[in-house]
């Protein structure tokens, strides 16, 4: 890749980060792809946004974007929320890349807490923003110990957490950031996606990259990785969603947001993936609440 040199020396480098930093991040990404599910430490940079707003995802996007890419950002499935709009605008300004809201047309998709409903294809890159990359963090506070546990595949504790769920709630109540086993070795936190999206992690043709800026970790799933959601034999993993069709497009297979619409207990269930919902409505599908 030959980055465009800015005319003005004071201007930002292509996609904000300097080339040395991007090289460093790309090395971490390659290592992550070589060892699926392994958390690679990297020297996370200060970004012009607060930690927790997707600094890890933004750094990965900056490292993988080329001038020919078409970029999409979603936040909880939506293209039009603050976080999505500002990150999209950020790369429009610093990289001058084309942007889109259409999942099928995008080559790089940065996402917070969702995997698009539309199936991804080979050649696409899905970049996740990760708040806490360590799936064992709330079970074992010592970093030295969690690393050893990963190295030795010592994952009994993850099942203790699921056991506690069943003991307390009668079923596995973990609904997001549901732990997965990657390629039979590493247990991975899939970032706070709903467990409805977990099956899409596995055997996905797209490259999936996970960036945690504050925690300084990158991990990755190469295309067609085997990803298994952990469970018990007698309490199998079940992807769950609200038991309604979308109020706007009538879809019954998509993940839904619940929106309170008045003070009288009125509520509306709509697709959390705005692109999916709009595409369906353009095709003429109508839900019961569509105006």
């Amino acid at each position: 890749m030959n980055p465009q040199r800015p005319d003005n020396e004071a201007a930002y480098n292509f996609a904000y980060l300097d080339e040395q930093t991007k090289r460093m991040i790309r090395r971490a990404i390659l290592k992550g792809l070589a060892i699926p599910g392994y958390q690679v430490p990297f020297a996370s940079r200060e970004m012009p946004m607060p930690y927790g707003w997707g600094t890890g995802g933004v750094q990965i996007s900056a490292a993988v974007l080329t001038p020919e890419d078409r970029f999409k950002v979603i936040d909880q499935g939506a293209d039009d929320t603050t976080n999505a709009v500002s990150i999209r605008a950020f790369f429009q300004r610093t990289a001058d890349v084309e942007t889109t809201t259409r999942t099928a047309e995008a080559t790089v998709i940065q996402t917070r807490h969702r995997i698009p409903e539309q199936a991804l294809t080979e050649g696409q890159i899905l970049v996740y923003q990760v708040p806490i990359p360590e799936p064992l963090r709330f079970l074992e506070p010592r970093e030295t110990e969690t690393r050893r546990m990963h190295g030795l595949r010592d994952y009994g504790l993850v099942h203790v957490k699921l056991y506690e769920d069943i003991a307390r709630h009668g079923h596995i109540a973990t609904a997001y950031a549901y732990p997965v086993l990657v390629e039979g070795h590493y247990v991975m936190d899939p970032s706070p996606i709903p467990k409805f999206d977990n099956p899409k992690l596995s055997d996905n043709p797209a490259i999936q990259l996970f960036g945690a800026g504050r925690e300084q970790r990158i991990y990755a799933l190469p295309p067609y990785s085997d990803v298994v959601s952990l469970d018990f034999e007698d309490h199998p993993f079940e992807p769950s969603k609200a038991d309604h069709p979308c109020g706007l497009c009538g879809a019954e297979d998509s993940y839904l947001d619940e929106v309170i619409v008045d003070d009288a207990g009125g509520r509306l269930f709509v697709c959390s993936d705005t692109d999916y919902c709009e595409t369906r409505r353009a095709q003429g599908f109508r839900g019961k609440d569509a105006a």
Partner: protein
Amino acid sequence: MNSDRALLSVRGLTKRYGAHVGCADVAFDLYPGEVMGIVGESGSGKSTLLGCMAGHLAPDSGQVIFDTRAAGPRDILTMSEPERRMLTRTDWAFVHQHARDGLRMGVSAGGNVGERLMAVGARNYGAIRARVADWLERVEIDAGRIDDRPATFSGGMQQRLQIARNLVTGPRLAFMDEPTGGLDVSVQARLLDLLRGLVRDMGLSAVIVTHDLAVVRLLADRLMVMKSGRVVETGLTDQVLDDPQHGYTQLLVSSVLQV
């Protein structure tokens, strides 16, 4: 398994903390079903020795040979970390003096006991729970408290819970570090009674470190007396306590208050 063969053989075990000696040149054999008591005053190296044998501390020299189920006698100090971890949660138990060190206080009693089962691959919730309930009963904890956190348990119950958590995988060797320390006498008596029953029923071998001579009198077949990191006297428990030979053992025995 051969009952003529030692379950655990310790040879020349030495651990130094700089110039200070933790324990020096300790050697003994422990046979299946046997309980070995290690007594001595604070700082005599009892806990260091126990830590070295259980793999918590790295000794400077010596061997700790354990008769593994799969491969016969192996030196655990030269084992790989995964092998040693597997051993520590299948064939070994470690009971800490403070139950809080050995329990996960944020996890329910059932989760605490079930952890070892899940760590060795149990994946059936119903089966895990049934075994946990069975074990809670064996250590005299009401099965109705299976979902309560250990923080809501009394000290004696916490200690019994820790024992259940350790014995659930049916280990052959238990290391116990002052298992009755910090408990009042009536609770101690019940705990000792329980331990004695479990050791007998399961054919468990144990190494018990304590400064309480009454505990070893009740539980231990053999006794090892330590002072300043060295073993000064060994023998059958009754023999050592009733006819102490070494000056320090005599002092120790005569220091017990008679009520």
